[in-house]
């Protein structure tokens, strides 16, 4: 079969039948902005950012819902396209309380913009998604002048009635990503568009608080939200001026082994996200434990020094003392009662390397096969 081609910004590209213009472009690393598309879910076509120009056509077309066809010629950043995107961004910004100072932004360079924001950051009213907001990025990229856009108040109060997720409707751009994340990716079916799609609200259950709906706090919607309408309760406490280090690792709760990314500031985990939609085994999904259950790491109840029991009470000791007691006790018990009078329980929470060391210790040092873990329980 002859391969069919589409031409995007002068690049001749092959496509598979059924692929949309957006999919072909993204597969080839051609930038087309989107605010509503969520990988793995059906498109909502709501944000209007992905418009492109098709040669010899008067109207602009949304790349996310238009299938590629043979010999189609596409321009992704023509003047017409840019103006349309600017208008779309302006409309989205005017829908709510987007006070991240992009609106005052007038200066020509990013640095002065940042400095200005940092100065203003004494208030906690500033959108917590600042610096991590796709709408803000696009407004900057397309140099949208927003000084004259009035801030509109939201008709729905902010919801903080659960321990993990803050829902700030005043920043919601009704892109629908959260709905897709909840219904098509996690399939928890907790949230939906309100009855009247233009009523301007994403509702949980029959418009109740998340905690009273079917929500299981997987946080998929938070990760999907392009703006500051859904945020982690914990992440609003981050300090904007201190660098955040990100580390990819594996969740330590269940056997799925989700790939996660820890955000660390001042030696404290402040946030956990998935490692990304393209990464197995979880493809961007997490559950409530993996995403929000990290308080234990920094708990004040963590053990910080060895302890030895004296007169029936555990007392703090040095490592030297503790290791010495353990080693000499093991030696004497082994001598008196034999190797098989000692048992070792290693752990399903240990790394492979640690489990290996534990069984090597039992077998090579204690000379017993009394080594097990609690997998059975």
């Amino acid at each position, binding site marked *: 079969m002859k391969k069919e081609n589409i031409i995007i910004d002068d690049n001749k590209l092959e496509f598979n039948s059924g692929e949309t213009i957006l999919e072909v472009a993204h597969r080839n690393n051609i930038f087309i902005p989107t605010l509503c598309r969520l990988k793995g879910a059906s498109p909502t076509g709501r944000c209007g950012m992905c418009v492109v120009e098709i040669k010899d056509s008067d109207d602009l077309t949304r790349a996310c819902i238009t299938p590629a066809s043979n010999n189609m010629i596409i321009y992704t950043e023509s003047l017409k396209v840019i103006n349309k995107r600017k208008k779309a961004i302006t409309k989205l910004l005017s829908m709510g309380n987007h006070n991240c100072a992009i609106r005052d932004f007038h200066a020509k360079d990013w640095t002065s913009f940042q400095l200005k924001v940092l100065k203003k950051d004494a208030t906690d009213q500033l959108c917590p998604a600042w610096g991590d907001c796709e709408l803000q990025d696009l407004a900057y990229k397309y140099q949208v002048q927003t000084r004259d856009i009035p801030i509109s108040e939201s008709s729905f109060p902010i919801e903080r009635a659960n321990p993990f997720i803050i829902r700030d409707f005043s920043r919601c751009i009704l892109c629908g990503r959260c709905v897709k994340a909840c219904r*098509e990716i996690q*399939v928890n079916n907790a949230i939906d568009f309100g009855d009247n799609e233009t009523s301007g609200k994403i509702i949980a259950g029959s418009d109740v608080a998340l905690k009273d709906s079917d929500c299981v706090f997987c946080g998929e919607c938070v990760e999907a939200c392009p703006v500051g309408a859904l945020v982690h309760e914990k992440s609003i406490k981050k300090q904007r001026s201190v660098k955040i280090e990100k580390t*990819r*690792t*594996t*969740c*330590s*709760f*269940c*056997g799925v082994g*989700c790939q996660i990314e*820890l955000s660390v500031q001042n*030696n404290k985990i402040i946030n956990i996200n998935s490692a990304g939609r393209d990464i*197995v*085994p979880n493809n961007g999904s997490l*559950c409530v434990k993996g995403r*929000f259950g*990290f*308080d*234990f*790491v920094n708990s004040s*109840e*963590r*053990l910080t*020094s060895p*302890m030895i*029991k004296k007169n029936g009470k555990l007392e703090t000791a040095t490592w030297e003392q503790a*290791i010495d007691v*353990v080693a000499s006790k*093991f030696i004497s*018990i082994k001598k008196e009662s034999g190797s*098989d*009078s*000692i*048992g*070792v*329980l*290693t*752990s*399903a*929470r240990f*790394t*492979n*390397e*640690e*489990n*290996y*060391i534990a*069984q090597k210790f039992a077998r*090579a*040092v204690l*000379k017993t096969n*009394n*080594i*097990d*873990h*609690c*997998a*059975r*329980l």
Partner: protein
Amino acid sequence: MTNSIQDIETADVILATGTNTTENHPVISSFIKRACLKGTTLIVIDPRKIKLTQHGDIWLRQTLGTDIAWINGFMHVIIKKNLYDKEFIKKRTEDFEELKKTVLKYTPEYVEKITGISANKIIETAKIFAQAKKGCILYCMGITQHTCGTDNVKSLANLSMLCGNIGLPGGGVNPLRGQNNVQGACDMGGLPNVFTGYQKIDDDNVRKKYETAWNVTELSFKPGLVATQMIEKAEKGELKSLYIMGENPMVSDPDLNHAEKALKNLDFLVVQDIFLTETAKIADVVLPANCFAEKNGTFSNTERRVQRVRKAVNAPGSAKEDWKIICDIASLMGYSMDYADPEEIFEEIRETTPSYKGITWKRIEKQGLQWPCPTEDHPGTPILHTEQFTRGKGLFHAIEHQDPAELPDKNYPFMLTTGRVLYHYHTGTMTMKSKGLNTLSPECFVEISSNDVTKLGFKDKAMVEVLSRRGKIKAKLKISSKAVDGTLFIPFHFAKAAANKLTNAKLDPIAKIPELKVCAVKIQRPA
């Protein structure tokens, strides 16, 4: 798992049994639910009306502890209706005739009597499963934590082989492992009868290999004790000392009152953990360890994928990495264990473990690899047994139904099953440090049907005492649509009302897994 997590979404039929996936493996449950959206048929066979049943087409409710019976019933129907995969059976399996003979008597009517699942439903569901091209079986501890746990697992393997679902994308028999690195702990020889990669300790060649690798003589060929036996021997005074790391048997063990007595009877108990757990409190020496965010290494997930763990923060106080602590003890005992870092340990693992041989930290930097992975250019193994089974041919096991060790009677009229809830993990040492998780799941409860509550004359949320022959706990009743008349469910996470004070420590004779999923209890007003 014989197959990969990604595979689940491509199955034609999914049979999920003894797995409350939405609460215990939430992300895997999304793969199942997405498959359902795309048209996969989901069959849930579970004593509770778990959430997954809302996404499924079929829910069958078996009486607790009667899994072998329904599985044999399914096979009876499949053989009788001639729906089994003859070619697969001929080419790849042995002892089919034995199986055939045994399941002959498991007619749908007979099975209905044992399991409570109607004969019609058994016929209908067995047909659906057998007629699917790709049938995926998922199970978890609802299948294994029984005195007949090993036989339950073998029965599921029988069913899968009978339908020719092994070695097939979207098929397979897939146990979902509970704790994050159970797979790895087993792979690494954290078991009393095998070294790494399941190499047997009574194989002279294997032992010799390790004696050379470790530079020691006379490694023991005597199989060691499993955890539950260690507790038993401790009570009798035959086991003098235990070195417990990162485990909390004072909450997770069956028949807790007995476990506590046993541990207190030890001459010397060492506990190495990140918190002062219930078990650490009674230790002679407590050693503070690092948690996952403070160490480098690897975990192996339930689909055998070896993945990196990376250090992100520093540990509190003088807490140390677990491997370092063990090495320090070993060295002081006169055997030098000296490694620069965990990667050096991993290299040693590779040397002695054929299934891990081809995996290097460098290779898994971006994405984990699934063992067996014998060479450095091997892509890993997403599906097991595509050509042959580990032993060559797949063996059918003819298995008869056996009653659970304890059944309800006049004095203890309810059946109790235990498990987990979404918001907590195991004994709660980690999740209960989270205010948020505690808000969403603050305390223990006794899940019960509204019929039973009315019959007993209680009210929803009433504080009650639940008693078994071994102990009693106090908790609030919680009427739930998940519950079925006559059966209670209690999560085992909570030390204050530890469900395992009630459970039966009776073991599966082979896997030595205690029967945590069935025992007999009664409910009464607190004194």
